């Protein structure tokens, strides 16, 4: 994959980071709420992108890992008072283990494409049913993160700014990690596996291992986001963390922004989340599901007209400008 921003082009992310750091000074609580959601979904989508975008193994059940992260830290917090700051790592390790197991099972038996997608959905849905029936984690009622007042040590904040900065740090670290990985052998191996598994294997890439590693890493990162999800919304239940909805939201922004690119998921979330949240705010209760309607429409339109997402579109425009008017390529004309 071509890199999107050259060294000089790092001005854009650097500028964006500066604005992001200063944002809480002048943003309202509502604006900050939207900003937190942007950061959270950008982060989750970035985590998904490691396996889905780079390695090309499209999990439609990543809510599995979101839920494991959310439930582990929240359970430990409500039952034994363990701070989510510690619980999140336990959840992430657990999710990593599950990511290894799921990855091993699927990839060992050569599941690909729609088959892998179906298995991941099924596992996540099984998890919904399972957790619905486990009473000590609240069953279908779920778990509530008790409000113990402003206490940073318990990842609880009076103002949204606290959550905002945590989400920002998580996103920056995730982006940096993916950026760094995309320049390492591992990153190139991921893409090679996606692009042509046989060719990769013939050139010494242990494709099974690479895919499993991607699954573990992606699960680990997603679960960390799960803990934050629980802390921020202060309430989780099987459907809203393990369900189909969160699974789609996790991958949506990577698809809209650009699969297998460093910045794609973040760009996708930045563009889409505010529109969706504003729509939800304006239309309120009379129009429940407005944001999902929007997401569905965007998914269809993106697949029809710009399957490489925003970054892909940007790239092809840039290429065309660079090449002047010479042969436009790989642009699809909609039927």
């Amino acid at each position, binding site marked *: 994959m071509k890199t999107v921003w050259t060294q000089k082009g790092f001005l854009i992310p650097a500028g964006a980071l500066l604005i992001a750091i200063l944002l809480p000074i002048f943003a309202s609580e509502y604006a900050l709420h939207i900003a937190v959601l942007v950061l959270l979904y950008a982060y989750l989508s970035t985590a998904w992108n490691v396996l889905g975008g780079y390695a090309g193994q499209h999990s439609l059940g990543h809510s599995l890992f979101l839920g494991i992260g959310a439930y582990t830290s929240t359970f430990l917090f409500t039952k034994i008072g363990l701070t989510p700051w510690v619980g999140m790592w336990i959840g992430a390790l657990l999710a990593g283990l599950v990511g290894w197991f799921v990855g091993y099972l699927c990839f060992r038996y050569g599941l690909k494409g729609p088959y892998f*997608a179906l298995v991941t959905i099924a596992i996540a849905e099984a998890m919904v049913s399972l957790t619905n029936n486990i009473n000590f984690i609240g069953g279908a009622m779920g778990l509530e993160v008790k409000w113990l007042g402003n206490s940073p040590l318990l990842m609880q904040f009076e103002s949204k700014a606290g959550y905002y900065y945590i989400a920002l740090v998580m996103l920056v670290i995730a982006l940096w990690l993916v950026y760094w990985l995309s320049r390492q052998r591992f990153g190139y191996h991921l893409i090679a596996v996606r692009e042509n598994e046989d060719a990769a294997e013939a050139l010494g890439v242990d494709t099974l291992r690479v895919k499993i590693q991607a699954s573990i890493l992606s699960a680990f990162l997603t679960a960390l986001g799960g803990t934050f999800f629980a802390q921020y919304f202060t309430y989780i239940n099987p459907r809203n963390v393990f369900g189909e909805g969160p699974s789609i939201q996790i991958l949506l922004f990577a698809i809209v922004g650009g699969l297998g690119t460093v910045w794609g998921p973040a760009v996708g979330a930045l563009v889409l989340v505010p529109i969706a949240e504003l729509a939800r705010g304006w239309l309120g209760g009379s129009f429940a599901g407005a944001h999902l309607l929007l997401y569905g*429409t965007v998914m269809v339109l993106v*697949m029809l007209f710009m399957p490489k997402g925003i970054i892909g579109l940007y790239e092809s425009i840039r290429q065309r400008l660079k090449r002047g008017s010479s042969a436009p390529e790989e642009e699809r004309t909609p039927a």
Partner: protein
Amino acid sequence: MIFSYELLAQAIVTGILIGGIFALISVGLSMIWGVMRIINFAHGEFLMIGMYIAYFLTAKAGWDPYLTIFITTPMLFLVGALIFQSTIRPILKDPSMNQIMLTLGLSLILQNLALVVFKADVLTSSTAYTRMNFMLGPVVVRGSQLIAFVGSALTAVFLYWFLQKTESGRAIRATAQNREAAALVGVNVRTTYLLAFGIGSATLGVAASLMIPFYYTSPTVGLFFGLIAYVVVVLGGLGNFIGALVAGLIIGLTESVGAAMLPGSLSRVLTYSLFVVVLLFRPQGIFGGKQQ
């Protein structure tokens, strides 16, 4: 849960009856996969559309639920054909993931459109058939479920006859087996795709009308039945007609017996686990996997 043979017998009877409906819901999906190698993730939502149509005709316009078949079936054919033509046809040659994402997007649209228009209310229509139950030894047989089972069986037979004996049916089977060869012997592949997608969707119209007397309608009803359809189709072998019918019964039994034996809604876990195991170890389905 206390075990008893009566309970088990009841579960088996219910499982077979429900399994018939599961099979009917799945044959269309299987056929669409067989012909054009696409998994329609909005399949369950198509069913939901059919159920809303059937519900309103029954509950508001006072129709006999089974009469609504003559509306739901052509309507669903139309819905399927329109959606196929406008969104799915343009991406038939794209990577399978794009197709999954697109149909997943469609399912989100339909589901939430229903939520907007009909609200989240769970609608049940109480028809004359709803209470038409009778005893078979210790087992209660629900008349509406028996009718649904028979209706499903008839529809399957009809579909099978259509695929075997008619010109269009043969075109569909030929295309499923080998697209290029079919085109060579004069099959219009474009039309055949449209027809297959339309018919695959229309079967959901039949299913919707048959289900109305005993099943509720809600915007998210497609989520469950969609998943069931994927499970059934994979179990029977993607594209395998007979396989889908048998697998429908197996899943019906699994769900129903599981529900009788396991506490809470854990039977769902059983169904999904079965699905995962089959995908892992026999992705071609338990009956081989080739189009019959």
